C-alpha cells in the first residue's frame, strides 16, 4: 500500500491508469487491483472512466488520491523520514 500511496502522491491531482501504476510502483496486477479496491472503498482513492485515446479502444479507469489519501500519503512520508528531518511544530 505504501508503494501505491507513494506512486499516486508524486503528482496527486493527476489521473493515472492501472497499467501505468503497475509500471511505476512495480506492483503486479494481482496486488495492485485489490489495493485499489480497498483504497477506493476507504475513500483514499477516487476513480473515473476516461474516454479512450484511440478510437476502437475501451474507456479506461483512472485513479488519483482523494484529500484523505493525500493526507495519509503525507503522514506516512513524515513517519518514514529519519527523526532528524521530521518537521516539528515551532
Amino acid at each position, binding site marked *: 500500500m505504501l508503494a501505491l500511496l507513494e506512486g499516486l502522491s508524486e503528482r496527486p491531482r493527476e489521473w493515472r*491508469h*492501472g*497499467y*501505468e501504476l*503497475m509500471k511505476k510502483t512495480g506492483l*503486479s*496486477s*494481482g*496486488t*495492485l*487491483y*485489490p489495493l485499489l*479496491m480497498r483504497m477506493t472503498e476507504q475513500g483514499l482513492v477516487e*476513480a473515473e472512466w476516461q474516454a479512450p485515446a484511440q478510437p476502437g*479502444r*475501451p*474507456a*479506461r*479507469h483512472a485513479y488519483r488520491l482523494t484529500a484523505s489519501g493525500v493526507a495519509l500519503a503525507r503522514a506516512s512520508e513524515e513517519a518514514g523520514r529519519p527523526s532528524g528531518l521530521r518537521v516539528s511544530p515551532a
Partner: protein
Amino acid sequence: MREKAARALVALAGRSLGGGGSGWALAMEAELDAAAEDGRALGFALGCVAAAWRELPAHEEGRFILASNALALVLLVPAAALLLASVAGDFPFSYLGAAGGQMPLVNDANLPAVPPLAALVALLAAAHLRIAWLVLERDWDRVAGAAMLAAAAAVTSVIFTAVAFVDCASAIRQAGTLCVELAAVAALARWHGRRAYA
C-alpha cells in the same frame, strides 16, 4: 494465441468478481491492451485472476462461488470417485465390506445380482458427477432431476443388497451420505434463490 488466452483469463477474473465488481472487471479488461503493447498481457491477466480470486471471500457472490466449488469438488466429486473405485476394485467386496462389518456372503445363488448392483453403484456415481457439474452451472431444475435419480439409485441399492446379500449396511451408509450431500445442495440452492445471482 497468448493474447487470446490473456483475454479469456481476464474474462474469468471478471466472472469471479461477480456483479458487484463489474466495474473493476471492465477496468482490468481496458488495461489489457496497454499490457499487450508491452508484451505482458499474459502476466497481467494472471495477476487479474489472482486479484479476483483473492477478493472472493470479501463479497457474498464470491462466498457463494467458493461454497459451490467446495461442495462440488470437495464433497460430490470425491464421493463419486470412491463409488467408482469400489466398482473398479474387488466388487462387491470393495463396496459391501466397506462398512467394516462381516464380509458379504457371495455364492452361486446371489452371484447374478453382482452386475446389476455394480450398475446401480456406477449410476449413483454418475449422478454425483452430474449434480456436481449442475451445481457449478447453477442449473437448479436439472440438479433436482439428478438428485431424484441419485436418491432412487441409493434406495434401490439398499433394498437390493438387503434382499440379495442380506447385508445393506454399506448401502444404508451410502444413502445417509447422499442425504447429507443433498441437504447441502438444497441449502446452496436456497442461498442462490435468495440472492438470485446471474
